[in-house]
């Protein structure tokens, strides 16, 4: 014991500090990264006192299920926003992916695998279009994805002339909606899986480093041999695919794909990412922050319902808290 307490050489402390930093690195990457944890804790305490039902395992699983869609997509959006871009089309991409998956199962083959491949593929394709238009034609991604936001939604509605498509494959419901994996409801399991993949890719891979550099200073990244266009496009494809995954989770829960679902969802997704410590100017952010950002918004929704706040007032409170939280974490 004493051996470690008596002043070790500077290099060793340095290395130890570095190992420690590496260990917690994934947790602390924002401007004032600890603030998001504090904010979440405060929220939990407030609602625990306000409602007797809030502090229960069932309720937390509930929050997890409710936030799954936003969380899954927000993980992809984290890459896009760190890369100094934005994707407004995620809600429409989700709707179109869900419709394509359900139609493929109806017409091509009624197994969950076909649904999964077509759903993820459609999302990836929309992401690829977003990415290529943004990088090759140098159109700001805000405008590109504003276009695909409209176009993808229109396509989803056109496919069946606005009618929902019923899904009948039991295995599909189980894999994406209703089963439990190691005791965890699958929507939550998919969220955790996506988060784990996101952490590995963003914080431990070359690609992650390149995303940070491309967003932090695209010119310097280019001068350092980073193919900024490709890095950016991959981020959009990733987000599209995750919107596809979210579509599978949603349609498995409701046993049908509907073309008019989750309108305006992109705002919740972007709010989660920004709340989680990402900079809209690129180069900064982390996956766990995003996940917590999404949980904070989900917890707010849940808690405000439990203490009986009217849905109109809920919207106002949510808006104020989001802006206040971002202002607070930014100082």
């Amino acid at each position: 014991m004493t051996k470690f307490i008596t002043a070790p050489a500077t290099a060793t402390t340095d290395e130890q500090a570095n190992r420690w930093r590496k260990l917690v690195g994934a947790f602390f990457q924002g401007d004032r990264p600890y603030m998001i944890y504090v904010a979440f804790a405060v929220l939990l305490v407030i609602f625990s006192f306000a409602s007797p039902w809030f502090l229960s395992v069932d309720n937390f699983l509930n929050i997890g299920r409710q936030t799954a869609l936003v969380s899954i997509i927000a993980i992809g959006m984290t890459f896009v926003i760190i890369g100094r871009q934005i994707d407004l089309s995620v809600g429409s991409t989700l709707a179109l992916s869900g419709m394509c998956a359900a139609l493929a199962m109806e017409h091509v083959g009624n197994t969950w695998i076909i649904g999964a491949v077509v759903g993820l593929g459609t999302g990836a394709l929309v992401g690829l279009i977003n990415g290529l238009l943004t990088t090759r034609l140098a159109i700001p991604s805000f405008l590109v994805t504003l276009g695909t936001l409209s176009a993808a939604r229109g396509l989803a509605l056109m496919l069946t002339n606005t009618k929902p498509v019923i899904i009948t494959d039991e295995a599909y419901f189980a894999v994406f909606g209703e089963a439990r994996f190691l005791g965890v409801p699958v929507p939550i399991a998919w969220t955790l899986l996506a988060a784990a993949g996101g952490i590995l890719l963003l914080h431990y891979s070359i690609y992650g480093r390149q995303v940070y550099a491309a967003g932090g200073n695209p010119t310097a990244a280019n001068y350092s041999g980073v193919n900024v266009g490709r890095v950016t496009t991959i981020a959009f494809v990733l987000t599209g695919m995750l919107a596809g995954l979210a579509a599978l989770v949603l349609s498995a829960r409701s046993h049908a794909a509907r073309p008019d679902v989750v309108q305006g969802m992109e705002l919740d997704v972007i709010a989660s990412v920004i709340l989680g410590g990402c900079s809209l100017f690129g180069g900064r952010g982390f996956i766990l922050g995003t996940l917590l950002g999404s949980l904070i918004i989900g917890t707010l929704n849940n808690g405000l319902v439990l203490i009986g706040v009217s849905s109109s007032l809920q919207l106002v409170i949510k808006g104020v808290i989001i802006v206040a939280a971002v202002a607070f974490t930014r100082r």
Partner: protein
Amino acid sequence: MPTSGTTSFPASSPAALIRVEGVTKSFGGVRALRGVDFELLPGEVHALLGENGAGKSTLIKILSGVQRHDGGSIEIAGRKVAFESSAKSREAGVAVVYQDLSLVESLSVGANLMLGREPRTRLGFIRKRQLMAEVGAFLTERGIPLDPRVSVASLPFAYRQMTEISKALIGNVRILILDEPTSALTGDEERILFDAIGRATRQGVGVIYVTHRLNEVFRISTRVTVFRDGLNAGTFATARTDMKQLVAAIVGPGHALAATGKAALEEQQAVAEPAAAETDQQAAQPALTLSGVTNDRLRGASLVLRKGEIHGLAGLVGSGRTEILQTIFGLRPVEAGTVSLDGVPAGELAPITAIGLGIALVPEDRHLQGLVLDHSIERNLTLPRLAFFSRWGWLRHGASVREARAAMGKLRVKAPGPTTIVKNLSGGNQQKVVFAKWNHPRPRVLLLDEPTVGVDVGAREEIYALIRAAAREGTGVLVVSSDLAELMLLCDGLSVVVDGRVVSTVARGDLATTEDLHHLIQTSQSPDELAA
């Protein structure tokens, strides 16, 4: 009766415009100011000197309200202040003329001068004629040669600076801060600027003049204060000091240049000599060959760079020097001609393939092109060689940090550690980080674009040593520089670039002095101008 405030030059005047005492400031572990004193009197031009990182810019930022000091006290006209914003500092009568000017280009000189203070009618419309008349009267009264009706966009740079200074003066500014105002000016423009400064001081305005150029100090200032490592290194009356004393104060004791500048120069040349001898042995082997390379900016550029050679590219700004480097690095397409490495044509180049072939570029603008300022040293260092510090696409974090630490040690980057944010480093240290990006593995061809711009004397010597060390190990180095003395000091061979082509190449030995190189550049221009 005690001393009156009107005494012109007391030792410590109660009428000082600014009195700074023991001011400290740190940025994330980097101590930029460690307790500095500074005083500005009405009507004086007080030059502020020091290497990059000595603390000049930090003090300016504090005085202009961009940043706040940690300790010590600042008095402006006898009142203690701690500006929360640049607006507050402006209210107290302090104005900074930055290099990137704060004028609205699309508006006229008059509109810029009265921006936000325009005379209005009762309905809130601007009285344009009255505005122009007021500004015109002001400019005539001060003897400033500007036409209030002309749009700023059409003015040459020096006149824009003059507009900026006039804008400060019309707003009752008493303290004017000029941060390296002459770096983009020609000789004539410089005279115009100095004239404007002289007019301002005669009205009782105090001017803080930050610069790297010592000869300006003697031309314009009344007093000089030198900072070194965040501390005062001395304040001198300009009339009673000389170049030698100032240089000694800037670089500090124990520095080679402080002893005698000339001896140090000779020593460097002695070091350069054996390097040149070694290159002779490899003389047959070209590291890089350009033959007839043509694209949007180059018109058949041809060049041979040998292994271990330091080759300079001289020429006027806009001659295509930078574009040659960019083309070799794959930032510009090659439309005709070939770029060969070790005699093998390189094919189509992009930065990533160029790096793969062992080509490295230290670009002209380190903030824009060289660094991600918000990221750590380690992240910046390993960015171009990520594949080298990874396995199957996964980053080997330990290897990356080890390399960062090693490179920081080798290049003597002054920072607490690899996780220090690059933004918090001084200019010289930032430039070392850009160099360190190419530390390992050693590049075959090193392209340097203005490698020591905005780098202080000490760090400059260290960078020269690095360049020579790289050449000794067999790297071919191609240097673009506007500093002819630098080219003469560093290079084994020199080429002059005119209009996207290499028009003449000489060995270093063929030129005796910097004037010869200057002459060569000038004579290289003339035939083209006659043809055009």
